[in-house]
């Protein structure tokens, strides 16, 4: 390229920087949008891929209906391309927090699907666990607190029940995220409300049955090389799955045999045990009977003995009595004898005493005489002592004295004799009396003795008879005991027999069970069954779809704009082109100026656009999804593939348009080029032929209409620009409307209930009825119905979808709580006994319609076919409604687990109080207020407002660039015309009106078309970017149309203001000087 041309190009850019900028801006928008939105999906996939790789998320999961063993692990390890195989455990339990029964999935910390520590540390000991942050939404617990988890016992291979966990009271040591649960969806459970509320991780050594794995996770070799969800990845996973599928049969059989064997051994053991027990029992009974017989005999013997003893005692006592009677008689006669003797003795004593008394008086006399003698004697002595006494005297005296002495002797002897006699008499009396006394004593003592004898005899009699009585009572007791023993024995015999029969029945049952053991089924799954992952990948697909539509709009408009811009530029430079051509420059050289011009705009704009697009758009889109997924922040990548595709497309569009414009001129000869291009000829428009309209049009209107038809291309483009702008803004608002209408649609229109009460497990029907009655009695509550709700999987061909089955207790009650209407005819329907209703979105996902058949997998993993009566209206979640009878026929026994409650008109506060009141009831596990759900989801959905803002801003930029550009082209193309009317004396605002009348009309047309376009585009976008679990209503509020129109008009106005000043600046003289 010649230097002069380079200079010329640079100058050109300087001089026409507005045009250059507008092309640059178009490239910027086109490439930016294309690359940015396109990059979202790969960036999101890259983010989840990194996340999964960092945390060793499985590639394949194997589960079995009967558990998995180490040999299964070993077998899978041998499969080609399998890298690592992990057997691990998980089971659902119930954690009760603040009266809420939370269904909790208990996982094990392992090297696969590693939990991501957020706080605290990972569990090390049996009694520790880590939880997810959701737990703290239910209670204000903290790290260090303990929670208790109730888990159903599990059967070991011998059919014995053991607790699942060794420790079920666990200390929370940390908070984690799990790569298995990136969304709020925690999957289905057989417990409680049928949904898992939260997960927690325990250590592996807390598991009791470590040799039965609940699942096996497999990673594939070289998995680092593949990006999740890509075809390459899926193909690799599928090939490994196929290989595992090949060993599946053998493994299933092996497990079956293992189970049958261990069950058989257990059965045999049980049989032997039963037989032993039987013999033992028979022996025991025989022994007992023998003992009973012995007892009977013993009793008989004792009875005889007692009888004999009694008779003997009777006899003995009779003779003893006789003896005593005789003794008594003897005593009486002795007494009589004694009496006679007494009388006699007393007589004798009386006489003796009389004699004695006589003797005594004699004695007295004697004594007196003696005294006299003695005194005479003494006198004599005294006198003898007198010496003066003559011998005679003395002799006389001596004689007297001797006489006296003699006399004295004689008296004394008489006295002695008397005294002796008295003594003798007294002694006799004494003796007689003594004898009498003695006799009396003898009799008295014999009497006492006899009395004593009698007494002791009586005592002996008493004790003996008491003893006999006692013995007899004992005997009676023994007899009674024997009788009761007998009945007891009979009872025992019956019992034993019953027990034996029962045990035998159990054995038969066990035998049947063994016979019934079905070969286990393996399910070989991959990441596509993880609900969070699937919806994430689906969301990336939605964005990909948006990415496919929106940039097209921008590219189309960018191309059109560049085409007009460059065409007008080339046309403006016709003469220069002609001159260059005349000077001998070839087409390529001349065209290169314009190509360089366009390329520069394109490349600079494109690179700026993709940079900003890559940086911003994924982040903004991510802001919406961040609310729904627990994931690390999006990893932004500079995606060269999309960047260059965007740039190439933009370049092809813009440079192609330039080349077309340049070539259109270049084919002419220099002579033609150097002549001014003939202005476009005026033409009559069809409207003029309708004279009665045309005649009534104002002059200015006529001019406007004529002009519109004159510059068809440009005006078409203006319309397209406005159309695009309006459409995009309408789509923006439409998305917002669709999304914000979801909640009222679902929770006001479809779900009419105000509360969902989850019942505690294992309530009997009576308590449920009581609760319902209690609730119905509350004046705040209008209606209550009982529901069974459970998660399941709906299947049609190779498509599966997790759904919630809702089964009312009575078919006709459902309509009170849920507005069931056919999605197409809007006819309100009632549940049929033999067919199901399926919600709109799940029908779409499974590709089924009214009258089709789908399969629903029940909790035993059996697939049951069901006929769809109607596809019904629904906006949030996936539901299948069926009747109780159908549920029981295809799923499992019917047992309600929740209540739908509709309130009377009450205030928010009243409702809150009501729910507080109810959560306190012992039957209630948890309460979900519809209003709370709405508020919660509202927050999430609000994030979609970013989309609206992006759309409005980009639509605005688009509209501005398009209008501004077109208006510039319009002015420059018609500069002579405008200068002319200015010369004619049009005021500035008249000149402006001259142009703007056209713009206004075109804007109006563009807006009207934009409304339709927006409506259609909205429908398309809504259906492509719909989130898996939601049904967006394809609706746009009238006010949104108004806003869209106002915003478009606003942008048009800004451009018009700019135009006004451009028009004012038009230099009449320069413009009219000559035709260039």
């Amino acid at each position, binding site marked *: 390229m010649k230097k002069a041309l380079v200079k010329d190009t640079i100058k050109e850019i300087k001089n026409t920087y507005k045009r250059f900028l507008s092309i640059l801006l178009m490239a910027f928008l086109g490439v930016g949008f294309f690359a940015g939105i396109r990059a979202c999906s790969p960036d999101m996939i890259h983010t989840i891929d990194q996340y999964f790789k960092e945390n060793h998320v499985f590639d394949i999961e194997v589960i079995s209906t009967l558990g998995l063993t180490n040999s299964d692990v070993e077998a899978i390890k041998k499969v080609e391309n399998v890298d690592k195989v992990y057997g691990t455990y998980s089971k659902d339990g119930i954690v009760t927090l603040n009266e809420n029964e939370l269904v909790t999935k208990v996982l094990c910390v392992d090297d696969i699907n590693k939990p991501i520590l957020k706080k605290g540390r990972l569990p090390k000991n049996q009694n520790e666990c880590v939880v997810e942050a959701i737990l703290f939404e239910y209670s204000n617990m903290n790290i260090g607190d303990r929670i208790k988890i109730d888990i159903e016992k599990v059967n070991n291979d011998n059919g014995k029940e053991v607790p699942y966990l060794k420790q079920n009271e666990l200390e929370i040591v940390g908070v984690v995220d799990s790569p298995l649960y990136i969304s709020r969806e925690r999957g289905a459970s057989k417990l409680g409300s049928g949904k898992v509320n939260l997960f927690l991780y325990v250590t592996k050594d807390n598991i009791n049955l470590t040799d039965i794995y609940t699942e096996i996770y497999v990673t594939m070799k070289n998995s680092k090389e593949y990006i999740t969800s890509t075809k390459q990845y899926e193909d690799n996973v599928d090939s490994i799955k196929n290989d595992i599928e090949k060993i599946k049969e053998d493994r299933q059989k092996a497990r079956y045999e293992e189970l049958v064997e261990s069950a058989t051994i257990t059965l045999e053991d049980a049989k032997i045990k039963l037989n032993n027990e039987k013999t033992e029992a028979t022996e025991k009974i025989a022994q007992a009977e023998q003992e009973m017989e012995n007892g009977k005999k013993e009793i008989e013997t004792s009875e005889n003995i007692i009888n004999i003893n009694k008779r003997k005692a009777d006899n003995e006592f009779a003779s003893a009595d006789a003896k005593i009677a005789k003794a008594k008689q003897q005593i009486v006669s002795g007494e009589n004898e004694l009496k006679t003797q007494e009388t006699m003795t007393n007589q004798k004593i009386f006489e003796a005493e009389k004699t004695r008394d006589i003797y005594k008086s004699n004695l007295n006399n004697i004594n007196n005489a003696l005294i006299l003698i003695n005194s005479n004697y003494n006198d004599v002595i005294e006198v003898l002592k007198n010496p003066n006494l003559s011998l005679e005297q003395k002799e006389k005296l001596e004689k007297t004295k001797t006489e006296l002495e003699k006399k004295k002797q004689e008296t004394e002897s008489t006295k002695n004799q008397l005294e002796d006699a008295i003594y003798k008499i007294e002694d006799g009396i004494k003796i007689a009396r003594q004898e009498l006394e003695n006799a009396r004593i003898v009799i008295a003592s014999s009497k006492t003795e006899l009395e004593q004898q009698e007494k002791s005899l009586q005592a002996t009699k008493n004790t003996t008879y008491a003893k006999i009585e006692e013995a007899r009572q004992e005997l009676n007791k023994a007899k009674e005991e024997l009788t009761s023993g007998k009945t007891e024995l009979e009872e025992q015999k019956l019992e034993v027999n019953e027990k034996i029969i029962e045990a035998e029945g159990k054995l038969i049952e066990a035998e049947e069970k063994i016979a019934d053991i079905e070969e286990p089924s393996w399910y070989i799954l991959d990441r596509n069954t993880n609900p969070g992952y699937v919806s994430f990948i689906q969301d990336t697909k939605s964005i990909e779809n948006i990415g496919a539509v929106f940039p097209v709009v921008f590219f189309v408009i960018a191309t059109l704009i560049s085409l007009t811009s460059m065409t007008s530029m080339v046309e403006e430079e016709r003469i220069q082109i002609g001159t260059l051509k005349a000077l001998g420059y070839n087409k390529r050289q001349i065209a290169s100026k314009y190509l360089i011009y366009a390329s520069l705009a394109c490349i600079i704009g494109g690179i700026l656009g993709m940079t900003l697009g890559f940086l911003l758009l994924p982040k903004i889109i991510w802001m919406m999804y961040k609310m729904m997924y627990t994931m690390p922040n999006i990893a932004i990548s500079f995606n060269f593939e999309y960047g260059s595709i965007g740039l190439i497309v933009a370049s092809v569009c813009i440079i192609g348009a330039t080349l077309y414009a340049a070539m259109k001129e270049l084919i002419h000869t220099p002579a033609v080029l150097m002549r001014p291009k003939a*202005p476009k*000829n*005026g033409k009559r428009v069809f409207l003029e032929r309708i004279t009665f309209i045309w005649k009534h049009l104002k002059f*200015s209107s006529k*001019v406007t209409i*004529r002009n519109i038809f004159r510059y068809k291309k440009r005006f078409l483009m203006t319309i397209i620009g406005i159309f695009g702008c309006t459409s995009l803004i309408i789509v923006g608002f439409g998305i917002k409307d669709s999304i914000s209408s979801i909640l009222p649609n679902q929770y006001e229109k479809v779900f009419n209930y105000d509360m969902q009460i989850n019942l505690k497990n294992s309530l009997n029907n009576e308590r449920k009825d009581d609760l319902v009655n209690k609730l119905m009695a509350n004046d705040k509550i209008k209606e209550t119905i009982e529901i069974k709700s459970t998660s399941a999987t709906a299947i049609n061909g190779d498509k599966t979808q997790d759904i919630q089955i809702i089964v009312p207790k009575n078919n006709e009650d459902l309509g009170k709580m849920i507005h069931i209407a056919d999605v197409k005819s809007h006819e309100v329907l009632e549940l049929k006994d033999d067919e199901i209703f399926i919600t709109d979105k799940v029908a779409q996902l499974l590709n089924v319609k009214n009258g089709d058949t789908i399969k629903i997998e029940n909790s035993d993993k059996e697939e049951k076919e069901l006929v769809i009566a109607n596809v019904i209206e629904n906006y949030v979640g996936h539901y299948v409604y069926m009747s109780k009878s159908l549920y029981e026929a295809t799923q499992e026994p019917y047992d309600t687990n929740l209540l739908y409650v509709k309130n009377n008109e009450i205030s928010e506060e009243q409702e809150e109080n009501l729910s507080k009141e109810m959560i306190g009831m012992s039957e209630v596990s948890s309460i979900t207020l519809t209003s709370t759900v709405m508020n919660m989801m509202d927050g999430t959905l609000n994030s979609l407002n970013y989309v609206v803002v992006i759309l409005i801003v980009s639509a605005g930029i688009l509209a501005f660039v398009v209008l501004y550009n077109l208006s510039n082209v319009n002015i420059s193309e018609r500069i002579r*015309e405008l200068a002319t009317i200015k010369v*004619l*004396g049009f005021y500035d605002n008249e000149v402006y009106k001259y142009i703007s009348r056209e713009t206004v009309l075109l804007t109006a047309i563009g807006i009207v078309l934009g409304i339709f376009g927006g409506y259609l585009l909205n429908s398309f976008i809504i259906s492509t970017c719909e989130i898996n679990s939601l049904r967006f209503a394809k609706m746009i509020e009238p006010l949104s149309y108004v806003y869209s129109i106002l915003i478009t008009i606003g942008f048009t106005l800004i451009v018009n203001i700019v135009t006004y000043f451009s028009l004012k600046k038009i230099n009449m*003289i320069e413009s009219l000087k000559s035709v260039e």
Partner: protein
Amino acid sequence: MSYIEFKNVVKTYEMGEININALNKANFSIEKGELVVIVGPSGAGKTTALNILGGMDDVTSGEVIVDEKRVDKLKNKELIKYRREDIGFVFQFYNLVQNLTAKENVELATEICNDSLNPEKVLAKVGLKARMDNFPAQLSGGEQQRVAIARAIAKNPKLLLCDEPTGALDYKTGKQILKLLQDTAKKENMTVLIITHNGAIAPMADKVIHFKNGKSEKVEINDHPVSIEEIEW
């Protein structure tokens, strides 16, 4: 005082660092109803003078008086009003709006004037009665220039300014146009200024102003203008 006075008018264009005086103290005057021809070589300042007189350009210094109005002192809006009501312009390249028929082109002008003439009558006057519903592209150059003249005079201006009206026309057609202008001036008693580099037509004018180097070098008064038909060149 004359109807039109051009006193010491200077118009300087700044071209980068160089100042070019397109008009360098130009002086002339024109009486009401005169047909004036301005002649001079290229770059002499004829068009600049005409533009200034037509209210399309401002002056650097000097006075311009039209019918006692100081045109040089007019503000933008007043200038437009001046153009609108007092001035009729005819250009070398007609400057018709291509998308409008002959009649509509005239109407474009009459729409905005208060005491305008009937477009159809004016068109009939310029001899285009039969062609007034034709678009410019369907008309010959001469016819287009007639339309342009009709558009200019339909406004009933005080001053009809023609910048090389025959520059793009062949001899015969050019003559017809000049005839039209001469007739109009005479019949309507309109003041008409015609710029031409063709000095040969000067005898048709009441006054001939010679321009050279931004000055009106010479002003000739022609007491007996000849009809254009009698002029050959």
